[in-house]
């Protein structure tokens, strides 16, 4: 997916109000990636399930009625991990798991799946999954090509989920650190990475880590988007001393702030 298209999705995600808004978005993302299903699933410690996704209504009802939460190897396996997991790697050896898998395929979930476990604040746990019907080689190619974007999308859905859940759990901090603010401000002013690193007396390498952390806090896919969002939220203030602008309001130049 192009960064531009994902930016559009992220802007919609940021603006989404309620689970209904997330539902429309996850359907659009599923269509975009041309996979059978995409699901964001947060299981709270008291067993409440919360989320959105494209599984059929029949399958969702079946899942709850059959109490598959206790059997589902995706839930059980991913809860103990934090790296992206191909469903093939999970433990399907028990009879209950095999029955569950057959039922899932019967309900159109697909024979392949890939999940991003999300570890949030205070032990919060959620999953972001894509599933599809295809062979192993094509699936490996798909997940390899989109792993990074899926990791980010899963975590952005979770940030939104935490926000929508209100006081069920504290919202992750979106406040930028002084260094992060400095980095984005100078980038927004049109300075290149090397110059920003020099001004802050850090290496470009460390600068990239600050930008990466700020980008995530801001729910942005790339640096350009992070800068735009930081400006929109008033976390950084632009104006005046832009190097590129001649008495004009400084604009963002794609080349200066583009993601590597």
């Amino acid at each position, binding site marked *: 997916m192009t960064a531009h298209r994902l930016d559009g999705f992220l802007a919609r995600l940021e603006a989404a109000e309620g689970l209904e808004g997330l539902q429309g978005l996850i359907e659009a993302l599923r269509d975009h990636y041309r996979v059978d299903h995409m699901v964001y699933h947060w299981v709270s410690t008291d067993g409440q399930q919360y989320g959105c996704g494209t599984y059929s209504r029949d399958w969702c009802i079946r899942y709850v009625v059959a109490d598959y939460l206790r059997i589902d190897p995706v839930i059980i396996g991913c809860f*103990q991990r934090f790296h992206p997991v191909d469903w093939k*790697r999970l433990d399907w050896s028990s009879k209950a798991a095999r029955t569950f898998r057959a039922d899932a395929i019967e309900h159109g979930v697909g024979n392949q799946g890939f999940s991003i476990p999300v570890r949030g604040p205070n*032990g919060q746990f959620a999953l972001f999954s894509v599933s599809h019907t295809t062979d192993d080689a094509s699936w*490996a190619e798909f997940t390899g090509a989109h792993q990074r974007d899926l*990791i980010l999308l899963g975590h952005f859905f979770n940030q939104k989920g935490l926000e929508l859940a209100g006081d069920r759990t504290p919202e992750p901090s979106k406040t930028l650190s002084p260094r992060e603010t400095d980095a984005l401000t100078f980038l927004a002013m049109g300075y290149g990475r090397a110059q920003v690193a020099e001004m802050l007396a850090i290496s470009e390498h460390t600068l990239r*880590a600050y930008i*990466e952390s700020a980008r995530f*806090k801001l729910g942005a896919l790339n640096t350009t988007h992070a800068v735009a969002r930081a400006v929109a939220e008033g976390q950084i203030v632009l104006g005046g001393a832009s190097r590129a602008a001649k008495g004009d309001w400084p604009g963002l130049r794609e080349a200066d702030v583009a993601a590597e």
Partner: protein
Amino acid sequence: MLRYHYASELRDLPRLRDAMFRDRADQFRRRLGWAVSVDENGLERDEYDDLNPLYVIWQRPDGLHGGSMRFLPTTGRTMVNEHFLDLMDGVPLHSPLIWECTRFCLAPGSDGRVAAALMLACGELMRGFSLAHMLGVFDARMVRIYRMIGASPEIIGSAGQGRDRISVGLWEYQGEARPGVLRKAGISSDLSELWFERSFGRPVQSRPATAVA
């Protein structure tokens, strides 16, 4: 060989697990004098070992622990964000593309090859899971070891002096450093990829569909 295990999987490897926690006690309490807690069995464990972290362990030919490191995602609880904020501008780093790496430990008698193998594993995790950075806490001796291996982190904050100096630093994934680290570890690229695949059930990097038999 290199093994990648979550804490929950170490239940099945009690001998290796206990050797790791015992060697950690030796390194962090006896040799470095850190205020870590060691239980009645001589094992050093802290609250982060209870969060089901991922460990990379160098297993020696005799089956015991030769060295290890511990990883946690910075989206959840981490040692750096909870205990070393003063070294980090006072504001925590959080990103799904940044993992924390702590408790880098070498068993007595382990040489630079083991240290290089552990750094190699760190790089394989970044490569395999699309991570941008590792965020680490380490002591003064490790700074020299990392330099020797050719995998120096960017230090973003330090406290203390001399051998008591503790630093927080960042590694960025750099593919061009990999051949050098492989050479220092004395491990072939294929072997490292085999160990990764054995642990995670998938290759470090997916190959094009046409290349799959």
